[in-house]
């Protein structure tokens, strides 16, 4: 293959109709086929042409994982330009330094993420992807050479000089071809990736490799445990790309659940547990940090193939990988084809191959230091066994892997600490504590106030770099090597024995919730007790409250509102609430409910006909007006109807054309159907596929939106009564609830207003028996389509307006 853009063109044409990327940014899922990815890429490339971006120009790429990121990446390559991917969590000063080093012509940023650093000429990738498509020019990307630069990836330098790893088209193509020779991935496979695309590991495993194979990838806008578990549940994923911390966290949870189960029974449950994680998943690729062999063994026991690999940004990135047939526990596998690995006399891993970088951008000194006789020095220690399997002892020796998979370079934190008066020197290390990495600073100085120093340093550090614990070095100087480098092995050893001997505070039980509260409020978890008031004692302001409820939701897999944490709420009260909420079943968010099971669907129409339609069609003969508005309409659709009688649901359903009636769900108010008339809800669920939708302002609307989004994703149309409850004001329409606008904007489905006239005279509110037989008129209005640029209130107003217009219409034909 001549270059990466030719690679992209060839494989998108080859796999045109196959699903490329699945994405669920808020409540709706959308997917792009490879053909669509190519089309959006060309649109962005056209916009880049207008901006005169050409070969050799650097373009910064800024955003979280999304299909637009992928299209923007290839659009930059289409112009023969150089991609500079950025970590959205980087502090503004670091982004400024990278920009100063890379001298970009343009910033291609996500509309979903504000750019925090100094202004640059920029474009929003989502907007550029929607632009007019011109006749495809011959993009200069097709003419690039293997030795031309494709990408500059900055690896370090929060406070020091950033190092830009230069990767050529040849580097990346060599690596993707080598990966393809060692790893099996079929076009029918589906990957869920938890690794960011700005990271080379994410880019290779979750963009370039699946593109080559024609497999689908699900990108998560924010890979929290909740999002991952949901994605595993709703996606037919066969492969997962993860970091070790995720495998450890999930395994700990599974084991905690198994604690009450006798040991001898557990092996019998393996298949069940496997299916609980996912029914389709069989392979987990793991990298970015060392994986505990014990964790790997447990996952393999459950029947998952764990493919651990090893790599560096400088090697595009994969050097070695275990494979399905060639695997050794605890090892990172054998070198990929074409890659040579050797161990230096001092134990350092050295690498040679077509995937090794061209050097550091405009940094001769670092480039020279990185190589020894043509071999790349990895800075890692390791050994090769007799069969050629590599074992890594210390990855980037003391690099710390943040909870989100970000690299934390101790040197950056030390530079920040050493600036503070009173600090002579410092050593930052990652300490494992109950399965989590604690960033610990050991300080050297006379009369140095550790807490004040750490607080000051944290003010200048990124969220993922925050120092969580500190100690004062007890001697006059750190142990140092001949070149005066601090011997961190000795510091770590001292820390291990020192901490064991002198715990910093009386031991307190640290629960997952107290740990979370401590992380959000930046407090020592050992100082948080049951009686601690979350708002007052821990200084939880409105910004932190949002973060805390978000993280409780994402990491504990429950839904919580901010109102749950008042000025008086204690940690114990919140613990109790979380405990109750976790035990609550079934949850609204569980999709699909029983009413969507094959047997419920099978019995739905016979039950509907026998119990409702027979007498309703006699009691309320229908006059339907406006059916022509539905003729060209594609499902899914949101039908919104006025509500003045219990007869409205069956009447509205009956008035619908069969295409919509066959695949319809009714969003019913939790207050009425699921509380006041709870006894009736199973029948309504069975006969009308109803489901609970929050109808009161104090209820959390998000589970309802989530469920509705999934229904629409699966092609079900929705019927909802947007007045919130039955209208008893004596007029045809009560003011709509704001939820109507929220639903229309968030769901991005056409809204059809439905006016029902006459049911209120047959069975008015408060009546148990009909007053008599009469004609009911059902009017369908023109579909209302609302863009995401519309505010919720404005959307509600426009829907209400559509109702008013429909109410004024004279009656139509029977």
């Amino acid at each position, binding site marked *: 293959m001549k270059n990466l853009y030719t690679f992209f063109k060839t494989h998108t044409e080859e796999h045109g109709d196959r699903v490329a990327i699945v994405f669920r940014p808020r409540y709706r899922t959308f997917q792009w086929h490879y053909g669509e990815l190519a089309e959006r890429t060309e649109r962005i490339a056209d916009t880049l042409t207008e901006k005169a971006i050409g070969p050799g120009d650097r373009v910064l790429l800024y955003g979280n994982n999304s299909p637009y990121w992928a299209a923007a990446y290839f659009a930059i390559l289409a112009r023969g330009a150089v991609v500079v991917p950025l970590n959205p*969590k980087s502090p*503004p000063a670091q982004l400024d330094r990278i920009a100063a080093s890379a001298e970009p012509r343009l910033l291609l940023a996500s509309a979903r993420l*504000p750019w925090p650093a100094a202004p640059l000429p920029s474009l929003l990738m989502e907007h550029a992807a929607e632009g007019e498509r011109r006749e495809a020019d011959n993009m200069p990307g097709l003419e690039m050479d293997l030795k031309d630069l494709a990408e500059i990836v900055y690896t370090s330098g929060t406070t020091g000089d950033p190092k830009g790893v230069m990767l050529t088209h040849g580097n990346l193509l060599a690596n993707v071809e080598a990966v393809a020779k060692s790893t099996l991935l079929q076009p029918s496979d589906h990957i869920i990736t938890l690794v960011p695309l700005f990271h080379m590991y994410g880019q290779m495993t979750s963009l370039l490799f699946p593109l080559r194979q024609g497999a689908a990838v699900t990108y998560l806008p924010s890979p929290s445990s909740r999002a991952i578990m949901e994605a595993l549940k709703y996606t037919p994923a066969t492969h997962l790309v993860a970091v070790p911390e995720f495998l450890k966290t999930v395994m700990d949870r599974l084991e905690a659940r198994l604690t009450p189960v006798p040991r001898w029974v557990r092996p019998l449950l393996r298949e069940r547990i496997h299916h609980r994680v996912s029914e389709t998943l069989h392979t987990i690729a793991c990298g970015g940090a060392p994986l505990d062999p014990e964790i790997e063994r447990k996952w393999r026991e459950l029947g998952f193939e764990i493919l651990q690999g090893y790599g560096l940004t400088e090697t595009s990135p994969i050097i070695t990988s275990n494979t399905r047939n060639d695997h050794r526990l605890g090892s990172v596998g054998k070198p990929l084809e074409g890659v040579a690995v050797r161990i230096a006399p001092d134990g350092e891993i050295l690498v040679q191959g077509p995937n090794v970088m061209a050097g550091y951008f405009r940094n001769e000194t670092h480039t020279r230091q990185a190589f020894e006789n043509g071999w790349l020095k990895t800075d890692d220690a390791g050994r090769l066994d007799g069969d050629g399997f590599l074992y890594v002892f210390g990855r980037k020796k003391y690099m710390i892997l943040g909870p989100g998979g970000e690299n934390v370079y101790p040197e950056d934190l030390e530079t920040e600490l050493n600036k503070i008066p009173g600090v002579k020197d410092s050593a930052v290390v990652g300490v494992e504590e109950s399965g989590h990495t604690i960033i610990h600073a050991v300080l050297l100085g006379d009369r140095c106030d550790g807490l004040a120093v750490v607080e000051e340093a944290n003010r200048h550090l990124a969220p993922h770099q925050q120092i969580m614990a500190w100690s004062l070095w007890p001697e006059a100087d750190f142990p140092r090597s001949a070149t005066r480098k601090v011997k961190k092995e000795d510091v770590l050893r001292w820390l291990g024995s020192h901490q064991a001997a002198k715990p910093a505070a009386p031991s307190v039980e640290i629960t997952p919730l107290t740990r979370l509260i401590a992380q959000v409020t930046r407090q020592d978890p050992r100082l948080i007790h049951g009686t601690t008031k979350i708002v007052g004692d821990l200084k939880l302001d*409105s910004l932190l409250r*949002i973060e805390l409820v978000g993280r409780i939701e994402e990491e504990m897999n429950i839904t919580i509102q*901010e*109102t749950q944490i008042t000025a008086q709420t204690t940690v114990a009260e919140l613990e109790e609430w979380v405990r109750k909420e976790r035990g609550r079943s079934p949850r609204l968010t569980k999709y699909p409910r029983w009413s969507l099971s094959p047997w419920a669907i099978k019995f739905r129409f016979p039950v509907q006909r026998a119990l409702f339609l027979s007498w309703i069609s006699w009691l309320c003969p229908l006059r339907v007006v406006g059916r022509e508005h539905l003729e060209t309409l594609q499902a899914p659709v949101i039908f919104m109807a006025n509500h003045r009688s219990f007869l409205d649901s069956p009447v509205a359903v009956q008035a619908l054309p069969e295409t919509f009636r066959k695949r319809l769900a009714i969003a019913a108010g939790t207050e009425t159907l699921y509380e006041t008339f709870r006894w009736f809800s199973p029948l309504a669920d069975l006969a009308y596929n109803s489901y609970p939708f929050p109808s009161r302002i104090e209820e959390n609307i998000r589970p309802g939106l989530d469920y509705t989004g999934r229904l629409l994703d699966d092609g079900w149309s929705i019927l909802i009564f947007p007045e919130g409850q039955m209208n008893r004001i004596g007029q045809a329409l009560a003011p709509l609830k704001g939820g109507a606008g929220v639903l229309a*904007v968030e769901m991005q489905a056409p809204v059809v207003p439905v006016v029902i006239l006459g049911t209120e005279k047959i069975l008015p509110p408060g009546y148990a028996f009909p007053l008599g037989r009469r004609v009911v008129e059902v009017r369908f209005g023109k579909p209302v389509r609302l863009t995401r640029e519309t505010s*919720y*209130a404005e959307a509600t107003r426009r829907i209400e307006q559509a109702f008013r217009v429909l109410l004024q219409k004279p009656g139509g034909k029977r």
Partner: protein
Amino acid sequence: MPFRLGCDIVSVPRFRERLAEGGEGFLERVFQPHEQAGASLERLAGLFAAKEAACKALSLPPGSWLQIGVTEETTGIPRVQLLEPQPELQTLYVSISEEGDYAMAVAIATFA
């Protein structure tokens, strides 16, 4: 005419940190889609201050962020739209200001 004031000040660097940490989930909880798309960091911090100020003026419970939508008139004057009507409320105005590391907002609500 009874009225109530609300005000709020947001540190933009701190807001950026929380946004980076909370990611898409933070945006989803606080901003309506029309408010986020392509908005600068300072603008989002200003909108956040406006929502907090409006919550204070209306005594809304914590977490009412999505109840308040802020749009901008062609003149650049922010306009607040409430998702649900508030009893007795007649008018609600906000004013937003952004300067350097800070964004602040004042809201005034008048009641019948």
